[in-house]
């Protein structure tokens, strides 16, 4: 693999930027692998990378039915943060945040991680109480959280509607200055290139159609490109976990829902932090290209359509414009949808399953992107050793039956209320 660097770029410039190698190979599937990972999104590719890098397992395939990063990795709003209230969640996401900070160097690939701050707005006294409570929980565990007064919020984002007649009055906020955004496609490409360099086969257009089983034990997968044997198989297809697990006869505590995101025409820099809200499902940030990226509510009923309701577009736009009135002058140029893997406590599942040699990484709801490096790190540990990493142990498949759910929103098994 040719290393990317300023010098290499300069040198290649003398010959018209020709002669670059392809970033990863396009291998034919082998007869068998030590580990097969189903799903070539950020999580699957980072799992393969850490399996090879940290655990020294090189005979690995990542099977992707479409193209890598073409699912939820390329459909989210690219926000990275770790400020969850509950300890298992903020420990996992902060481990991820630490890996985000060094990711571009680690992968020799610019993932454009931009720690521009992730700010939650509070719109009432009770919002501020909730934010303070969450901030205290974070600071007790050494994670940065800063409660901001109304004036501090106004100084940080002068374009917010702070008037007396504001639709959503702003009482203050809480920010995590280490949070921010990253280039989502680059995360998939960077992990794919780095994993490929360590010998991992990244196989695109290879759809898993079933599992080969022997006495209740998974021994490989059936695909549209033939049978492939495997020592261990890891499902990593959040959004489509139900149908893949069903091929092994399993039912999961997960329902699929549609979540949309939107982007406006590109403009000059106007918002230099990530704006979120304690009470609204409204996410506002500005991409490096200049477009204002907006996120809103999921569609709140089961769907794999990857095509959302117009009512949600209207709601997300209305909330964003109420918060930042200047946005009303912009044209929305694109909207798209992803399929969220809504687990029944709002937290992911990184776990073994009741079928031997089969593992699950899924149930990320609408918050998986920010976890990408930690998810891969913990899943690699599980696939290499057969035992859960300490950070992932609370996210076991059997926690629902044990009553040990990790429910940040406290709404139980109905994902549409989350």
């Amino acid at each position, binding site marked *: 693999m040719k290393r990317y660097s300023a010098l290499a770029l300069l040198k290649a410039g003398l010959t018209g930027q020709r002669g670059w190698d392809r970033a990863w190979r396009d291998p034919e599937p082998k007869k068998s692998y030590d580990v097969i990972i189903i799903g070539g999104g950020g999580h699957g590719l980072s799992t393969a990378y850490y399996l090879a890098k940290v655990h020294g397992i090189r005979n690995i395939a990542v099977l992707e039915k479409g193209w890598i990063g073409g699912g939820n990795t390329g459909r989210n709003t690219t926000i990275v943060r770790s400020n969850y209230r509950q300890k298992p969640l903020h420990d996992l996401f902060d481990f991820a945040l630490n890996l985000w900070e060094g990711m571009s160097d680690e992968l020799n690939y610019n993932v454009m991680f931009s720690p521009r701050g992730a700010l939650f707005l509070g719109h009432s006294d009770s919002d501020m109480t909730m934010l303070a409570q969450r901030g205290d929980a974070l600071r007790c565990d050494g994670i940065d959280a800063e409660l901001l007064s109304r004036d501090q919020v106004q100084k940080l984002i002068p374009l917010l509607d702070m008037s007396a007649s504001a639709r959503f009055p702003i009482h203050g906020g809480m920010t995590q200055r280490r949070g921010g955004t990253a280039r989502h496609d680059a995360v998939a490409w960077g992990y794919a290139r780095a994993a490929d360099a360590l010998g991992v086969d990244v196989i695109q257009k290879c759809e898993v159609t079933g599992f080969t089983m022997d006495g209740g034990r998974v021994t490989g997968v059936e695909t549209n490109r033939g049978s492939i044997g495997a020592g261990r198989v890891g499902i990593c297809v959040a959004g*489509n*976990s*139900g*149908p893949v697990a*069903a091929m092994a006869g399993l*039912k*999961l*505590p*997960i*329902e*699929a829902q549609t979540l949309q995101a939107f982007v406006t025409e590109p403009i000059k820099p106007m918002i230099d932090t990530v704006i979120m809200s304690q009470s609204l499902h409204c996410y506002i940030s500005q991409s490096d290209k200049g477009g204002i990226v907006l996120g809103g509510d999921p569609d*709140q*009923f*089961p*769907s*794999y*359509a990857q095509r959302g*309701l*117009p*009512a949600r577009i209207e709601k997300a736009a209305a909330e964003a414009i109420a918060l930042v009135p200047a946005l009303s002058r912009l044209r929305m140029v694109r909207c798209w949808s992803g399929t969220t893997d809504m687990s*029944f406590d709002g937290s992911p599942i990184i776990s073994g399953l009741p079928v031997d040699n089969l593992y699950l990484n899924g149930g990320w709801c609408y918050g998986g992107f920010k976890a990408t490096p930690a998810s891969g790190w913990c899943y690699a540990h599980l696939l290499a050793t057969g035992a859960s990493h300490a950070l992932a142990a609370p996210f076991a498949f059997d926690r*629902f*039956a044990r009553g040990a759910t990790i429910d940040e929103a406290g709404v139980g*098994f*109905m994902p*549409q209320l989350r």
Partner: protein
Amino acid sequence: MMQIDCPYCGPRAQVEFAYERTLDSIVTLDMPAEEAVSRLYARANPRGLDDELWRHSFGCRQWLVLRRHRVSHAIVSITEYAP
């Protein structure tokens, strides 16, 4: 947008209705714990048809059973919910 043909009110916009849960995940108070857990937490979540309990929340407030396709959103049947 989906239009839902309420058996009580006629065709109405989808936004008037709220999804509750799948029909096979309704739990009764006298159910053994193991069955209740499996009904609450194990979903087929198919990429196809499933039977779902919906409510006409911003209309007649009646419970309805929709047999609906989860990719095309096509509604095969709508019936009154009779427990």
